[in-house]
């Protein structure tokens, strides 16, 4: 056989192998982390781990609930801030903005996505922490001294701080996905609506957004998952003190990813500690993988529907 054909076939096999490797990577990760978290699951039930808030590794208590609550707080705050701002920005860029603004927007969003998480953390410490400590916290706790605003944490390192920093970090993913989705909405739909005498905003509200709704939901899901797993920036600004179950936006929050990151030094010295921490990583993997599968699944479905006519 010709040497060129032999080369061709060898390379084809190798490439197929790479394909399988990438395909199996996510299962490998799940398997590896699950194997490592087995020892603790054998001793403590999953229910106890998820719903107990007692975290004393030296005594063998590994309750994750306050960390799960912390994750919930920062993610929720980030999403509440980021979603409306990102969607409005994406609509503006794709529907209203002039060519010049549009050309400027892309590099800005790319750059925002490319900045290191640690830089967001530094920015959070320099700018957002004082903002929360000196302005937001006194204002809200005086005016609205009820459920989510009451706290005795006056440091500025709080769930809200983490949420604000996270919100800025989730802008790029939500904006770029929504913009992409809006671009797939056929131009004729807009023209038909405008021809009926609708204003531009009415066209967007009743025609474009209706068509784009599944895609926007996907964008939000992807944004949630991004906020859910972000580690270093949150670790730096959210307070992260042990033994506090966050009940207010101004309480310090200690989300799961930050917990994993913070234990790197001591993890191997206490029995079962590494197992508990890797269980947290396993939970994080499963949740973000599910969110991403749903989000990208919706987008894939839209794309295929578009292609088939």
């Amino acid at each position, binding site marked *: 056989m010709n040497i060129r054909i032999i080369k061709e076939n060898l*390379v084809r096999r190798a490439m197929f192998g790479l394909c399988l490797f990438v395909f199996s*990577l*996510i299962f490998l990760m799940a398997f590896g982390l699950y194997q490592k978290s087995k020892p603790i699951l054998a001793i403590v039930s999953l229910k106890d781990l998820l719903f107990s808030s007692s975290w004393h590794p030296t005594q063998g208590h590994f309750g994750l609930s306050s960390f799960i609550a912390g994750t919930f707080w920062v993610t929720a705050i980030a999403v509440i801030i980021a979603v409306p701002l990102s969607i409005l920005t994406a609509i503006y860029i794709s529907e209203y903005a002039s060519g010049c603004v549009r050309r400027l927007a892309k590099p800005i969003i790319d*750059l925002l996505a490319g900045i290191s998480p*640690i*830089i967001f953390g530094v920015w959070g410490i320099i700018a957002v922490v004082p903002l929360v400590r000196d302005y937001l916290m006194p204002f809200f706790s005086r005016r609205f001294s009820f459920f989510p605003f009451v706290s005795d944490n006056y440091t500025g390192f709080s769930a809200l701080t983490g949420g604000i920093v996270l919100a*800025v970090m989730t802008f790029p993913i939500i904006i770029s996905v929504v913009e992409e989705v809006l671009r797939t909405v056929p131009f004729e739909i807009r023209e038909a609506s405008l021809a009926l005498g609708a*204003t531009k905003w009415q066209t967007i509200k009743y025609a474009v957004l209706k068509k784009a709704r599944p895609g926007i939901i996907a964008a939000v899901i992807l944004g949630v998952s991004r906020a859910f797993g972000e*580690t270093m920036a949150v670790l730096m600004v959210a307070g992260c003190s042990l033994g506090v179950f966050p009940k207010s936006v101004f309480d310090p929050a200690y989300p799961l990813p930050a917990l994993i990151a913070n234990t790197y030094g001591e993890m191997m010295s206490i029995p079962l500690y590494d197992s508990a921490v890797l269980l947290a990583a396993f939970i994080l993997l499963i949740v973000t993988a599910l969110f991403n599968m749903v989000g990208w699944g919706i987008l894939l479905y839209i794309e295929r529907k578009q292609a088939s006519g």
Partner: protein
Amino acid sequence: MDKRRIEENVFKGLMVFSTFIVASSLVLILITIFIKGFPALNLDMIIKTPKGGYYLGKEGGVLNAILGSLILGTAATFLALLVSLPLVFYLNLYLKKNSRLALSVRFILDVLWGIPSIVYGAFGFTLMVFFGLRASLLAGIITVALLIIPIMARSIDEVLKMIPFELKEASYALGATKLETSIKVIFRQALPGILTAILIAFGRGIGDAASVLFTASFTDSLPYSLFKPVATLPLSIFFQLGTPFPEVQQRGYASALILTVIILFISILSRILSGKFTKHTIK
């Protein structure tokens, strides 16, 4: 003025406001880092390694972290390229356009892209334990490579998708195999896009801290062995800000400025590159 007009204007105002917030958040971040970091920046920061007591305010710099990050980032990018490039060529040239395998690999890449870096770090840690490695440059390189494979593969994929179909056909018609077509025709045509993808992935790899925390650890000495821990710039910033001493925190801000400048430089370079290197490409 009628109600519709008012609604139109209100929402338009809201949109302009949101866009302004998003854009100004980037500007604010850059300005804050610059204002805080610049006064603390000096030559010692860049050309010296931390001396004893550096984290207590004694003299030294972060050369160990700068070099460590560059070496780790470069090696990881190279490793990721070795996986991504053949993979993407396989997806685009060897598989049919609507093949199920191609569809599912792209889907998995998208999902992998959304997995947080701390999970990669934890996975890298389990791999390390499995193979009996200690926290080292090698473990860091492998973990960061895994982290940036999805980013790199998906960006190269976007580039290859844009390549005109006729180019492939012309090459096949001359009797070239798919491998020859890939290397001699498609690769050249896609080169500017591939370089951009490499730079994007490099920027991501160099800026990530959560994945190297467990796997590459940290050290005050310069990187000299694949099997020894290595310092990285993001972690260096993290540790310097974690100290209670204002002068060390100042240096943390300066290190943050160094990292930001590196990342800015990479992203500007990638913009310039995507415009150049078009000697062999067909418009």
